[in-house]
């Protein structure tokens, strides 16, 4: 019933957004660009058919898996509304994956605008998949890609095609091959936990039975900076993001060496050190050398993050008496205070478009929730409410989503949502508590 109502609404919505015959490209999605303040979360209706099995006498399971992965990707992206397969009318067995063999009138009735169809061949353990994007209203093919490799690569093929679909509609790269690292607390120790952005194919790193904290990706997506107590002191380490890899030390100055984040040009780190007797923000080279002090106060300065253009750093300071979000120019000068509401604001994360900083705030009911502050206007927007505690925001590299930790389902798990707080979805379900997620970059070649 709900789907039906939603679909009717969407028809109207699409008529407004994409008037037929208008100069606007018939199937492009309006997305926020540059410093545009108006953020549009699009609900472009799209359907993904079960992958057609072209191999005789083979299981159809792969076809279902492929469909599920693509539907999940497109739904999570924040750009699309995926139409429920229960509403599909076309029979996958009697139809094909070419313009002539797809029954577009049946797909029109589902309310979808875009349609992904695919077929696969499995021979001697080698999988070949052909995926096609159609525009339903015109009946035209828009993208066609073929992938070949071991059966285990199906997920990657689907993620790659989903990236192509997003790029086709939005002219922006997709995030479907990115990863999220978080800290997993399990059996009294804390290790790093790395998963695909959709919570699949997870593995642990730095699983030494000790305390490992505050992971942050390098720009190439191949290694992770984090803080470990393995030598007794909270030192900064770096570990390749590959199962079974060994870490190497980056900074083991006396006191804290924590919260490193790589600069947008990949050449520097910003981090908190207490080597000079009090917690201050420093910028170092990527190998942790040549620290340059950015803050200078007797209070706590902590949790630094870069602006996407690399000219500023946002951080937490309690110099006013309570922890608040500040920003400072990398070139020097006194920091600017950004938050004035609430008495406990922490964990800043700068949006990829540079306009907003997401942070954790404690509200008057002493509950932690996520907010954003506009860097220019200082306007505060609330993203979560009445759903447990919500902390540690991190933006997807395309700026469409925010991952965070929340205990709304009982224990702390990693969730993702649209940047206006809509569509929250839990992505970790393994045993243990998960906190401080950090979203990896879109790496070259994706």
């Amino acid at each position, binding site marked *: 019933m709900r789907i039906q109502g939603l679909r009717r609404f969407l028809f109207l919505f699409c008529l407004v957004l994409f008037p037929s015959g208008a100069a606007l490209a018939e199937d492009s999605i309006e997305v926020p660009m540059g410093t545009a303040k108006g953020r549009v979360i699009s609900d472009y209706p799209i359907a993904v058919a079960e992958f057609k099995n072209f191999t005789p006498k083979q299981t159809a399971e792969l076809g279902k898996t492929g469909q599920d992965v693509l539907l999940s990707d497109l739904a999570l992206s924040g750009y699309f509304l995926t139409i429920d397969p229960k509403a599909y009318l076309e029979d996958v067995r009697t139809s094909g994956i070419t313009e002539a063999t797809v029954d577009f009138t049946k797909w029109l009735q589902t309310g979808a605008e875009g349609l992904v169809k695919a077929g696969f061949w499995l021979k001697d353990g080698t999988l070949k998949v052909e995926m096609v994007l159609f525009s339903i209203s015109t009946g035209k093919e828009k993208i066609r890609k073929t992938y070949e490799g071991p059966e285990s690569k199906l997920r990657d093929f689907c993620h790659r095609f989903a990236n192509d679909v997003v790029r086709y509609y939005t002219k922006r790269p997709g995030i479907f091959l990115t990863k999220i690292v978080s800290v997993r607390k399990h*059996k*009294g120790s804390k290790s790093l936990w790395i998963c695909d952005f959709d919570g699949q194919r997870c593995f642990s790193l730095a699983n030494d039975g000790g305390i490992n904290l505050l992971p942050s990706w390098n720009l190439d997506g191949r290694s992770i900076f984090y803080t470990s107590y393995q030598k007794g002191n909270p030192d900064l380490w770096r570990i390749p993001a590959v199962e079974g890899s060994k870490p190497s030390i980056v900074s083991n100055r006396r006191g*804290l060496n924590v919260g490193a984040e790589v600069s947008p040009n990949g050449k520097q780190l910003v981090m908190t050190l*207490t080597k000079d007797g*009090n917690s201050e923000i420093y910028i170092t080279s990527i190998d942790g050398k040549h620290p340059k002090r950015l803050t200078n106060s007797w209070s706590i300065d902590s949790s630094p993050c870069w602006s996407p253009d690399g000219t500023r750093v946002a951080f937490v300071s309690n110099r006013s008496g309570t922890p608040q979000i500040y920003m400072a120019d990398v070139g020097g000068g006194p920091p600017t205070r950004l938050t004035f509401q609430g008495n406990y604001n922490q964990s800043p994360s700068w949006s990829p478009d540079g306009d907003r900083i997401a942070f954790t705030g404690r509200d008057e009911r002493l509950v932690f929730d996520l907010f954003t502050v506009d860097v220019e206007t200082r306007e505060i927007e609330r993203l979560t409410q009445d759903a447990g505690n919500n902390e540690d925001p991190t933006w997807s590299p395309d700026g469409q989503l925010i991952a965070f930790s929340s205990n709304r389902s009982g224990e702390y798990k990693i969730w993702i949502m649209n940047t206006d707080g809509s569509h929250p979805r839990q992505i970790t379900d393994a045993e243990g508590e998960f906190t401080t997620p950090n979203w990896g970059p879109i790496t070259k070649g994706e």
Partner: protein
Amino acid sequence: MPRYRSFMMLCLIALFGLLLNACASTPPDKERLAAEAAFAQAEPAKDCASLKYQSAEEMLNQARRLETQAEYDEARKHYNVAKKLAEEAHDSALTQTDCLREHGYADEEMESSTEETDENGPNVGSAGTPATAEHDDYNLEMVHFPFDSYELTDETREILGRHVEWMVKNKALVRLVGHCDERGSAEYNLALGEQRAFEVRQYLIQNGVPMDDLEIVSMGEEKPLSYEHSEEAYAQNRRVEFVKQGFREEP
């Protein structure tokens, strides 16, 4: 319990003294075995043993290194300290019933371990003399803090005053370990824990403890004493602990 523990420590030190005289330049086999045994006993409950377990491990490693360098006397001392730290770690872990339960230790297990340590006390004790009693039976009581604060309260200053007296008199080397409650970000809490230890150090130094005798580490919100989510538990967890690291030798 406290009486047993102090008695036991006292005896250990006496024993240590005897052994030191008896076998000055031979490898410290006995001490190594004793330290390793104590360490092995503490190991299963290490997750609940606060920082003492880590310190014991460090001390044990140092001792092994010294032994390989044929620094037998130094190694012997380190083994003894490691043993003591491991025993303390074990004892302190056994009081953390919430934590033990969280890590899946059965209640019988906890009880039987307690009995074991209790039995150990008198046995070792029969060999000892209370010659160096003052050194170790002083309890460096931890101090607590208000929420999101590193202010030293009057009560805290009073406790620290007593610590200063003992530390100066005994030339004690002490590690100050700062802790927070679980609320707030892990990152901010690391800085807050450090600041708490920093404030305590300032006070100790101002009152006569040599700066070099003190070291600081922050555990942030990572090592709570209580795993409950109540105001009382939070208050208990906002603290600076004092971990004895040995005693300064005269130059």
